[in-house]
Structures are given as structure tokens and as C-alpha cells.
């Protein structure tokens, strides 16, 4: 099975063909936005970090921005810096260069004014757009697809229909040789030993337990006991009995295969199959991490609805809630509530999701893309000075 993708110099294949503008610091974000304005095929990252950060955060910001730059969904990159920031535009550009794509950088303080920078930036971007238009899609095996899985705005249908259906699709993709990223470490709490048991090696299992312990400890230090808060009274009234049940209902979207690897936030997996990325449960931070790690497509389950999308990767929304599909038709792509009506099995819905994934990977626009949703947020660990 193939999708139609853009083959890049570095070898990977993309599902989209964007020219990307990356502000290396929050100060140049507005300029980046102005450069991108009304240029079809161009997106900018609304990044506000890159200065005054502690070492670990500076590294995480850099890794995330470079991850977006080297991403196969991106044809070429323009990095825009202010000039005095800690994370210089040149440093980001140099991080992206090994991908073999065209990368340029411009610095406001060197250009002599914001308007000049915008003008020069738009000229560069228009050239890149013209070159990008020469790229064509070609057949790419599914084994080269990296899927990011996510759930947000969950309700009772998430654990019964949309997450199991996505899990079935995840298993199909792994069977085809592809990669599935499961993330949201805090959501694992309660079922972390069960997931750790499914790891390829005890060492990976141990990494999972260390990651969940870190989150639990951080939350506790801020006064929140994750285990006590969940399941909530509302969850219990709705039928969720234990934290394990709630967590498993979420984790199930990754499917049932062996966990091959665990990677930190915004790191690219080195293995195929099901992998775990350590991210917050925050919908946009999680999404940003998975895309930065190379996910060319995202499938996002929701029960109560959310319009969230990503700047460079298509986000497919699926729901098991038939009322939601009716009321938020402009934000939800696929309805799998037929599972709950007995009209479709979980496996049949999983097949439908895979078919939709291939269509979207090959160019079909998602509702989030039609709405122009380009949500982006880097997971920040510590304080900014």
C-alpha cells in the first residue's frame, strides 16, 4: 500500500509541500507573520521562545524549531531572527541545512528595519514557492509514514469507539511497516506498568516508568495528586471505575503492538512500529512535539469537539459521538459512532480510518486545514528569565 508523497533530498517523504518561516525568537514572530501573509503555500510558526530560557528549554526550543525545519512536509525554510537573541537565526538555519533543502536566514537588526526585512523575506519566500511548485507527488510505501495519535476533548465515546478504532488503524499501519507515535505521558499514569510490560526490552519499560514518575512528582510538587483526581466524580457517574480503565481507554489509540522505543519531547523515533514520546497531555504541546519528531500526519480523537490543527501536518479529527459530528461538522472529519450503534466493528472503523489517512497523506484537505488552524506551542519545562 502506498500514499502519494513528496520525496525530499534527505530521503524522507512528506504529505505536504510548505515553505516554512521560523522566527528564532518571539521578537521576530510578528515579522515572520507579515512575511507569510497571504502567500498561499507558506506558513509561519508562532514561536514566542528563543531568549531568556534555561539551558534545557533553550535546547528543547531549538530541537522543536529544527524538527519543523527538517520535516519532509516542508520544501524550504526562511528563519527570521531579531539579532540579539540567545537562539540565533543562523544557529537554527545551520541545524536545518543537513536536510539538503533550501534554508535562508535574515536578521531584523542587520537589515535596517522591519519593513525592509519583510520585503526581503517575501522575495525569498516567493522564489521558494516558485521552486516548490515544481515538486510532484510520487508513490511512497506506507512503511515510511509516521502517524501521531492524539485524544482531546474526550468523552465516554472516546474510550469505547474512537480510541479503539484509531488503535485498530494504528495496528494496521504498524503491520504495513509504518510508525505510530503514542504520547501524553500524564495520561499513562494508572496504566504505566501495563504499558511498560509491552515494551520491547525491560530498559524501555524502565524509561516509561521513569517518565511517568517525573510527571507525577512535578504535579505533586505543584500541589496536584494526579492519582487522586482521576477518575473524577463525573467520570465515575459516567461509568469509568478506575484510573487504569480511564488511562487504558486513552492509550488504546496506539494499538496493541509491542512498544519499540521511547523518545523525549520532539525527538525523532529511530525505530519503526509503535513508539512512545514523552509529552505533556496539553493538546497543542503534544501535537507540536510529535510533528517536530517527524509525524507527517496526525489522527486526533475527540468526543466533545476541538478545532485544533497544526501548521505543517494535516490533523484528521475523528469522533464516536454522533451528535458532535452533526454539530461540529466543520471541524470533524470522520464519524465512527456506527461502532456504538452496532453497524460497524472496531476493525471496520479502523480500516476506514486507514483509508482516510492515505487520502489525506496524498493531498486531501482536512477540516482543520480548511479552517486554517495552525496551532503551535513548545512544551516549556522551566521559567523564562
Amino acid at each position, binding site marked *: 500500500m502506498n500514499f502519494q508523497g513528496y520525496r525530499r533530498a534527505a530521503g524522507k517523504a512528506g504529505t505536504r509541500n510548505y515553505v516554512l518561516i521560523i522566527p528564532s525568537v518571539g521578537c521576530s514572530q510578528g515579522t515572520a507573520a507579515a512575511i507569510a501573509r497571504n502567500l498561499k503555500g507558506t506558513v509561519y510558526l508562532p514561536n514566542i521562545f528563543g531568549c531568556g530560557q534555561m539551558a534545557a528549554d533553550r535546547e528543547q526550543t531549538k530541537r522543536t524549531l529544527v524538527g519543523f525545519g527538517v520535516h519532509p512536509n516542508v520544501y524550504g525554510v526562511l528563519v527570521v531572527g531579531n539579532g540579539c537573541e540567545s537562539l540565533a537565526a543562523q544557529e537554527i538555519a545551520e541545524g536545518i541545512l543537513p536536510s539538503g533543502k533550501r534554508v535562508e536566514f535574515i536578521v531584523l537588526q542587520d537589515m535596517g528595519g522591519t519593513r525592509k526585512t519583510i520585503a526581503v523575506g517575501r522575495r525569498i519566500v516567493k522564489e521558494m514557492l516558485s521552486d516548490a511548485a515544481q515538486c510532484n507527488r510520487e508513490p511512497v510505501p506506507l512503511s515510511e509514514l509516521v502517524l501521531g495519535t492524539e485524544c482531546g476533548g474526550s468523552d465516554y465515546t472516546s474510550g469505547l469507539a474512537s480510541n*479503539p478504532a484509531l488503535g485498530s488503524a494504528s495496528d494496521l499501519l504498524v503491520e504495513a511497516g509504518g510508525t505510530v507515535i503514542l504520547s501524553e505521558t500524564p495520561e499513562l499514569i494508572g496504566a504505566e506498568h501495563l504499558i511498560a510490560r509491552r515494551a520491547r526490552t525491560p530498559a524501555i519499560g524502565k524509561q516509561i516508568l521513569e517518565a511517568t514518575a517525573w510527571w507525577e512528582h512535578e504535579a505533586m510538587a505543584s500541589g496536584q495528586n494526579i492519582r487522586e483526581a482521576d477518575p473524577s466524580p463525573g467520570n465515575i457517574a459516567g*461509568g469509568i471505575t478506575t484510573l487504569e*480503565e480511564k488511562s487504558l481507554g486513552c492509550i488504546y489509540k496506539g494499538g496493541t503492538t509491542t512498544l519499540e522505543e521511547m523518545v523525549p519531547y520532539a525527538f525523532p523515533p529511530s525505530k519503526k512500529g509503535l513508539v512512545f514520546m514523552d509529552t505533556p497531555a496539553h493538546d497543542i504541546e503534544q501535537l507540536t512535539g510529535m510533528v517536530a519528531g517527524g509525524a507527517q500526519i496526525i489522527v486526533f480523537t475527540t468526543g466533545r469537539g476541538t478545532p485544533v490543527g497544526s501548521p505543517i501536518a494535516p490533523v484528521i479529527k475523528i469522533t464516536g459521538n454522533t451528535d458532535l459530528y452533526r454539530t461540529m461538522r466543520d471541524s470533524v472529519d470522520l464519524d465512527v459512532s456506527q461502532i456504538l450503534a452496532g453497524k460497524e466493528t472496531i476493525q471496520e472503523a479502523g480500516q476506514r480510518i486507514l483509508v482516510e489517512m492515505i487520502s489525506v497523506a496524498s493531498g486531501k484537505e482536512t477540516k482543520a486545514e480548511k479552517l486554517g488552524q495552525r496551532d503551535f506551542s513548545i512544551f516549556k519545562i522551566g521559567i523564562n528569565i
Partner: protein
Amino acid sequence: MDNRRKAIVITKQDNVATALIPLAPDETVSVILQGRPEVIKLLSSIPKGHKFALQEIAAGGDVIKYGEPIGQATTRIPRGEHVHVHNVASHTKTTEGVP
């Protein structure tokens, strides 16, 4: 005959089903249990979203959903009985060393 789906079983290993509509005591529910169609007679009312046992679960036995243990039965749970916070305890413990 009401053909609406009454309950869902997620994996073949599960020993509970989840009600999709409110179900009454003595009501019968058709499920596929390990590949075979079976009829379960309910012993209690099962609210929408709540679970019932597909087979007897011994006291101390695992309640299995999603193919994994989601808790432990605190008492013997007969087939068709409501499975929830009144007869299930979580396995989960706070991570050691966390204050």
C-alpha cells in the same frame, strides 16, 4: 425485537461489556464471547456507560477491559452483574518515594 446495539466488548480477552444504553434487570444482551454468540441475562440495572460481567469474576480476580486488568473484584461478581466502584478496587498505588 430491538436490534439496537446494547453493549460493546472491546477485545476478545475482556470479561466485561459496557452498556451503550441504560439496561434493566432481567434484560438479555447478545454478545460475542471469545468468538461465540452468547446471551447474558442482567442481574441489576446497568446505567449507560457502565459495565457488567460477561462471566463470573472470583473475589480478587482481575476485571479485564481493553485486554488488560483495570482493577480487582473485591467480592465474587456473578455473570450479568453490574461491575463498578462498589465491587472493584484499583490496583494503582502512588509511586514509591513521592511525598
